[in-house]
């Protein structure tokens, strides 16, 4: 493995040793923690969101829950975590400590205010104490204080005004953090850009309900008999995060550097975020589950992948999936295929038969004596559900059929009912888009 690989990235004028940062959360609550994270290999931190000491921040208890899937623990986390409950002075001292001892590790301060003066106050306090970049938290989905967090992220003019106010007050770069609890993220992102934002980060947590107690019917976390719709994070939300990063990366009008997050645990997740356009990557849930040590595998895994692939720099990966990401109306529908089976490695579980019968094209017959499937090729929908359940990797693959190959029509159960049919063909002409 002699191919030289450089994991460093430039983001908002700062150089990061690698793209992996702590995101603003419990994992970045104190300098003591961040110091250990840096020592483990994280290249920077978005420190837990600061407040101005004007309002007392008290955390609900308990503050987190999780979603298990079968025996797999915590495929998602649920939290009612608030912004930092530490005095601002303490947090600023922590910045001083980190800048003093880790000068090569950029500090991004996350802040959240309620009105312009408060945003400005926090921004200046950060800049004055050595912070490299600001992240404006427009996106916390469950603040105990009405009118804050994602409520701002959903009120675009506020978002623009607060961004502009901060930009005018400080000279360091400003990044706006977006809520995914919205249909189209490019819209608020463009407002942030209008306000002067230098970068966008996404996603904050997705509003959700993790679990409801079967004994007490209280959604979790159960805060003394009350649950709340709150932030869901972790591997389960990765598709949502990729969607928003990709959409913003494809938006030419936006053209801002992106910091991606949402369900990143492995270098494979990280790679996917890079390929859809993120430059830096932030992690919380993966650390909440496994600790800071996962960065070792993020770094090593991504480096080896790049070396094997012959990619020398992370920037050569950023956005490389975007040309292949298009709307469904661009698909070549005249090209069709089916699955093919390597029965030499089949173990005879028959799950393919079950799913094809009940959710596919009824294209897989079952030989009970031999315990093997048999494919009826012209009924195969190429839905790939059989591949999804097949326990043997590589047994079921997709193959394109020659031009002109036709799939059999789904049979009507009883054509004998035709005389009773009430049906006239639809004949009106109309546009190929929805209009009122």
């Amino acid at each position, binding site marked *: 493995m002699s191919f030289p690989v450089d994991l460093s990235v430039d983001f908002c004028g700062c150089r990061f040793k690698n793209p992996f940062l702590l995101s603003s959360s419990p994992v970045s609550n104190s300098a003591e923690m961040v110091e250990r994270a840096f020592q483990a290999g994280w290249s920077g931190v978005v420190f837990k969101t600061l407040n101005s000491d004007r309002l007392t921040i008290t955390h609900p208890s308990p503050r987190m829950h999780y979603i298990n899937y079968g025996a797999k623990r915590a495929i998602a986390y649920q939290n009612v975590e608030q912004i930092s409950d530490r005095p601002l002075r303490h947090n600023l001292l922590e910045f001083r400590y980190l800048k003093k001892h880790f000068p090569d590790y950029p500090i991004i301060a996350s802040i959240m205010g309620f009105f312009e003066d408060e945003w400005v106050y926090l921004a200046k306090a950060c800049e004055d104490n050595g912070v490299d970049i600001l992240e404006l938290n427009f996106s916390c989905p469950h603040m105990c204080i009405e009118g804050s967090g994602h409520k701002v992220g959903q009120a675009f003019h506020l978002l623009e005004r607060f961004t502009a106010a901060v930009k005018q007050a400080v000279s360091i770069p400003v990044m706006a953090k977006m809520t995914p609890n919205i249909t189209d993220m490019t819209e608020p992102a463009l407002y942030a850009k209008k306000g002067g934002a230098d970068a966008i980060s996404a996603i904050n947590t997705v509003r959700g309900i993790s679990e409801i107690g079967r004994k007490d019917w209280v959604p979790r976390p159960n805060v003394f008999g009350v649950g709340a719709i709150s932030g869901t994070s972790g591997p389960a939300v990765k598709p949502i995060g990729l969607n928003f990063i990709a959409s913003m990366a494809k938006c030419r009008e936006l053209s801002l550097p992106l910091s991606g997050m949402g369900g990143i645990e492995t270098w494979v997740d990280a790679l996917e975020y890079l390929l859809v356009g993120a430059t830096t990557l932030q992690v919380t849930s993966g650390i909440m589950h496994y600790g800071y040590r996962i960065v070792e595998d993020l770094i090593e895994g991504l480096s080896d992948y790049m070396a094997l692939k012959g990619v020398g720099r992370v920037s050569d990966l950023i956005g490389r999936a975007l040309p292949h990401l298009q709307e469904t109306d661009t698909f070549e529908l005249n090209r069709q295929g089916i699955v093919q089976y390597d029965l030499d490695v*089949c173990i005879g*579980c028959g*799950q393919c038969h079950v799913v094809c019968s009940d959710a596919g094209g009824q294209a897989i017959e*079952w030989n009970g004596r031999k315990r093997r499937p048999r494919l009826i090729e012209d009924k195969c929908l190429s839905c790939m559900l059989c591949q999804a359940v097949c326990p043997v990797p590589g047994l079921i693959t997709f193959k394109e059929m020659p031009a002109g190959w036709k799939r059999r029509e789904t049979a009507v159960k009883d054509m004998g009912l035709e005389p009773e049919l009430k049906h006239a063909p639809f004949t009106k002409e109309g546009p190929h888009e929805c209009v009122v």
Partner: protein
Amino acid sequence: MNPAKHFKQMRKGLDLPLAIAEADRCLLCHDAPCSKGCPADTRPAEFIRKLRFRNITGAIRTIKENNILGGACGELCPTHRLCEKECSARFISLGRPEGADRPIQIGKIQRFLIEHSWQIGFKPLRKAAPRFEKIAVVGSGPAGLSCAAELAKGGYPVTLFEARPEPGGVLRYGVVSYRFSLEFLENELRDIADLGVEFTCNHPIEGPAGAENLLKEGFRAVFLAPGLWAAEALVPKAQPMPGVYSSVDYLSALRDGRFKETARRIEGKTVAVIGGGSVAIDCVESAARLGAKDVYLVYRRSYAQMPAEADERMEAQATGVHFLLLNQPVGYVTGRGRRLKGLKLVRTRLGEPDASGRRSPRPVKGSDWVLNCDVVIEAIGNRPVGGSPKWYPRVKLAGHNLIKVNSKTGQTSVRGIFAGGDIVRGPALVVQAVADGKRAAAAIQRYLSR
């Protein structure tokens, strides 16, 4: 650690998270082969699927409805040659004929679900409308319990006659506590008693035509499942010899209140056990656990021919038992007062396969020797209690005083009398006895509905 307590404690079963993790590995096969591998039709594919979809009560119901001794079978079945042998999760294919993974631990999941039912107090079984035809079941071992429970579910009044002081048969008097505890047995028995089965213990059905007379005493059908409680002996018809026990006596003694006395006789002694089956393994391993100085398993064939399960054999070796293979016991050496001093042995070599398909042991001339020992336990086979055919004189017998039945119904040659378990099969598995009981119960209900 208290050795007696250690001896009586069963190994720990799965808990809910471990059972769920195991169910997660299940491939949920179509037309599942594991279910076809269960003689009693306990339907593992169904209860594992139910567990997988968090229908835990339903999973318990599936087991309980199909195998009233689901807990015992989960623990005691040689699952690796029944349900688990058929498991697709072993990943056996043309490409990987030796397989690539372990089967789902079906027995462990099954045991867990039954223990879980006790923990949460879930009793899924329902009884049909009451019937009035009284039925007698003779013997409260697995076959008798299974038949009685099945008929009780069908609404029939069932009386279970047991010769010994307490019910359970081989599950009480024939297994060792660290494999299957009395507490576990009591839980299984309570579920059967809850169905209304009347247990009548200390009540042997014997004497001339004693079993057949039950039909005259108001019972409309009789199920015979007395089991095999006489021991084959190395020296037939010999007088009792201090220090020589049959496996039947020895294993019973460890369960029926003579534990301390038996433990005292084993501790610090040299013990030889004759035999190569599962019972012999229980004897050697228990003797080792009770603190015997040396324990020998004496077997006339070799390791590969032993009828004991592979895992049992390895476990016994790990416990420190000496396997004395290719040695045929031929008699005893005694001292004053017929007190045992040693076991006379002759070395063997393996010849051609015999009727059982295993290579037969041939004595090596002039190789006689004596293994000095304080205790010998003979585990060389069980047979029906002597004279038992007289209790049912009209019932046709097969060889070795076993009862001949229609294999589909358990019906004997006498109308109204059915039989199952070891008295029909010879030594067999608990799960096969359960299957016999179920089959006969169905046949009895058909017989009574005519």
